């Protein structure tokens, strides 16, 4: 057994009540068991079927076809287009959310009248279901019956029918919905930065940029990175908003392709293979983030 963190196992305090080991096990193991049960089954199921030509919609014998699904997918330029679209989308939308969310938090991190109310109001977009957000933004963007173009004086700008613009329109909607999430986590991190550090910096006549990069950012970065990790993962999975807003080939995210394989065409085997490719990619990206996160925490 690796030594428990703070107390020597033979110390008096550790001997009272349950032992630290028991507590650790009671605290951690149910969660892990629970997640294993509810994730490993779908994972094995999908992995198994990803090597077959299984179609859930018909009663036909299932054949093992080895890596054919993976080969077919990776050789399909359309799938690569899906990945490229997804990459662009994730970058634009997560970047936008981080900048706007963190910026808002910086602005809000001071004495402001009715701060609680303002924060709650700002969080309203993320409290709505993505399907409803998608529906309403489709209406907002429409030049003939939505208010956006009128208010901004954009005339007949066809946000969603323009092949190049549509992806950004989807990203803007996603940013609108999720920047508040980053804002809230950043606020929690910012208010943890002890005031006396700023005071010390002021005494040292540190510039505000210096203060920001050497005091604020390092202390906020763990929570900021958690926000980044979750937003990236979720952005990879974006479905409802994009699907409802636009069906341009230039906005066909990989999750939409996945949905089509799985639920429209019922190419179950192929959809499982694509899901695994996506999973591996997200795992890799998240892994990099987590490394940074751990580094940030060590500082």
């Amino acid at each position, binding site marked *: 057994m690796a030594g428990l963190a703070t107390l020597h196992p033979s110390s008096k305090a550790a001997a009272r009540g349950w032992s630290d080991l028991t507590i650790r096990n009671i605290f951690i193991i149910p969660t892990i068991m629970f997640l294993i049960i509810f994730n490993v089954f779908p994972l094995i199921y999908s992995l198994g079927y990803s090597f077959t030509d299984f179609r859930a919609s018909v009663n036909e014998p299932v054949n093992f076809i080895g890596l054919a699904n993976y080969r077919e997918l990776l050789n399909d330029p359309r799938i690569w287009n899906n990945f490229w679209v997804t990459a662009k989308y994730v970058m634009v939308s997560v970047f936008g959310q981080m900048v706007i969310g963190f910026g808002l938090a910086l602005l809000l991190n001071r004495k402001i009248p009715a701060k609680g109310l303002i924060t709650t109001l700002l969080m309203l977009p993320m409290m709505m279901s993505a399907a409803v957000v998608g529906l*309403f933004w489709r209406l907002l963007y429409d030049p003939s019956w939505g*208010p956006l*173009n009128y208010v901004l004086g954009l005339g007949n700008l066809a946000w969603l029918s323009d092949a190049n613009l549509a992806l950004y329109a989807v990203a803007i909607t996603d940013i609108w919905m999720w920047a508040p999430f980053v804002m809230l986590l950043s606020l929690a991190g910012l208010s943890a930065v*002890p005031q006396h550090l700023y005071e010390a910096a002021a005494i040292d006549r540190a510039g505000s940029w210096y203060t920001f990069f050497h005091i604020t950012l390092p202390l906020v970065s763990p929570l900021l990175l958690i926000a980044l990790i979750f937003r990236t993962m979720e952005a990879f999975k974006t479905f409802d908003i994009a699907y409802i807003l636009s069906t341009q080939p230039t906005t066909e995210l990989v999750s939409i392709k*996945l949905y089509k394989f799985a639920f429209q065409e019922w190419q179950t085997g192929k959809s499982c293979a694509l*899901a695994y490719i996506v999973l591996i990619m997200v795992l890799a990206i998240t892994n990099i983030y*987590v490394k940074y996160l751990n580094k940030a925490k060590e500082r």
Partner: protein
Amino acid sequence: MAVVTSSRKKVWNRVAIAAVIVIAIAFLSPLYWIGSTAFKPRSLATTVPPTVFFQPEITPFIKLFTKRVQLTKPVDPAVYAAAPWYEQRIYDGGERILRVGPNIQLSQYPNRFMNSLIVAIISTFIAVSMGTITAYGFSRFKMAGEADWLFFILSTRMLPPIVVAIPMYLMYRVVGLNDSHIGLIILYTAFNLSFSVWLMKGFMDEIPKEYEEAALVDGYTRMQSFFKIVLPEAVTGIAATSVFCFITAWNEYAFALIMTNRRAQTTPPFIPSQVGSGLIDWTVIAAGTLLFIIPVAVFTFMLRNHLLRGVTFGAIRK
């Protein structure tokens, strides 16, 4: 010098407040517009330029709560005159309310709303409780392969729900959990748990160990010190995590759609189904959205001070 700094600071403060106001307006105007649509007559919902001033009406809410159908021929004036006021409003909109025998038929909205409340509250409670203790476990005790276990927990949220849906559905059918509240609660708990553990661990790590150690030396057991020292300090984290988990569970769409039918289906798949036929009735969707956002908004507002308080103990970190 000090005076200069503080006056400069004041100016900065004003600029920041002005910026907050501008951004808040930009963020909130789509919401205002959704909210106001919920009280608009149908014909004013899609006007360009947008209609800002209008006589508000509650017809959209009557529509939301009743099962309606398009009129195919004009309504008999005698029937209209005899109808209660709310039914007249529906007639005015070119629809009629369905009846079972003499009784008007209600929509599924109230039922779905109840289901949403049950599922979201219970699953949030479980996910946050489990997440809190697990985060504490990971934060305070060493464990072989700790980083890997944490990464495993995180990875459970990476698969798109549409992929998990089919195998889960089959599994649920075998166990008999499909179309049940318990089934959805378990799913949402599993779904939120990874987030809950990770976020809570961030907060737990910030709570200095010195306090607990002092308590242990004072004769507390580990459990007592967890409940009496750590939990109160973690309230901020718990509040933030609860808000996020509640929001996720409250709005989940894909699983609710596939896993549940009449008995346990929640509201999110219901609201878009109110689009009406032939023409989208934005007012009803807006009304459904508005009512549906109230519980989350109230919940968040109640916890707002915790959300803003931040991690107070960071101060004594070296």
